[in-house]
């Protein structure tokens, strides 16, 4: 009986009460959502840093995700867009790394075949960086003892001596002086 006599708020009064309570709830939820997005951005930034290291210096990837006119506080929508852009950048970086790894693997297989059967890969050249090595060397199949080896079918894989000197003027194939870098 007491329950029946209680003053129960009508629909209009209830929505008015909700409207009073809602902003604080929404505010708190948005703050929590922004914090969660910032955590996700931090995680993506760490993964991008790992990808950068894995890709360096061979895979060519655009790492930049444009700023938002900071320093300022970013809203929920801006953080979401930033998170999505970082995720896209990470995805494309990983794809580029995988593509590069596949390219290097193919070249390593080719280099192995060149070593096993140099006669079947005459004058084939592969840059050392294209098999995942550092430096400026080039693997090439060349005849042993020049023209004699070419006539006799004596072929071998040679690795060039590496990077040109960084200092001092050099001479190009025609004998012209190349200025120092």
């Amino acid at each position, binding site marked *: 009986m007491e329950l029946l006599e209680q003053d129960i708020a009508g629909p209009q009064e209830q929505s008015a009460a909700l409207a009073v309570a809602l902003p604080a709830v929404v505010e708190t939820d948005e*703050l929590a959502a*922004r*914090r969660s997005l*910032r955590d996700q*951005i*931090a995680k993506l*930034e*760490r993964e991008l*840093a*790992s990808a*950068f*290291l894995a890709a*360096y210096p061979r895979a060519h990837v655009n*790492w*930049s*995700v*444009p*700023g*938002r*006119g*900071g*320093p*300022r*506080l*970013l809203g929920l929508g*801006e953080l979401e867009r*930033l998170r999505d852009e*970082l995720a896209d950048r990470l995805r494309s970086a990983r794809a580029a790394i995988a593509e590069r790894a596949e390219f290097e693997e193919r070249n390593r297989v080719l280099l192995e075949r060149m070593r096993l059967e140099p006669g079947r890969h005459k004058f084939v050249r592969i840059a050392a960086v294209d098999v995942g090595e550092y430096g400026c060397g080039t693997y090439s199949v060349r005849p042993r003892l020049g023209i004699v080896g070419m006539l006799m079918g004596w072929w071998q894989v040679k690795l060039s001596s590496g990077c040109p000197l960084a200092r001092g003027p050099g001479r190009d194939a025609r004998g012209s002086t190349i200025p120092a870098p």
Partner: protein
Amino acid sequence: MTASGTEAEPAAGVVAPDVADEFPALRLRYLELDARPGRSSRGVKHRLKDMSSRFRGPQAVAMRQEPIPWAYRVFYRHIGLDPDADRTPVEEAAVQRLIQGAFRSHNRLDDALLVGLVETGVPIWALDSATVDGKLSIRLTGTAERLGRDARAPALVSGRLVVADERSPLAVLFGDLAPGHGVTSGTTRMTLFTVQVQGVPEIHVEEALYTCVAILTEE
């Protein structure tokens, strides 16, 4: 807050409530010390030389994976900066080291800030204490505010994160100092301040400040 030699305790700056809500771990630390700008001692130059020979390309490439540089990169993202375009201070120092071939000595103040930055990863900025009025804080700019109180002070967009004293903004967060508030040849007292973000341990912040104080107050 007042430094005499290396005995000073860094003071905690105020972080405005609306900023602290978003970044609960953000801290501003600063201290004042009696120091004049001038030429670096031979010992500091030697220290820079040692740092140059310890710091090479591989460290620069791997830097963004280290905890403190990474923490500043993440904070840059959080406040709408692109750390690959506007480099974090420690990454900028690393790039300059690679471009110039060494950590070059400029003057006692710049060298002190550079040594502190490279050894700890924590950036420090210096103001002329005579131009600082009251406690420092991190806050958002209001409407029609200017960067500093100088006649040349540029206007600031509202909602920009700044380091300010009780009268006006003195520096954009991780950006330019206000004209007329930096250290000059006439400075006799300096205010060093640093911004600690989430993931940067307190001990690194103190170490960075004390490294600068030690260099700036050495005889």
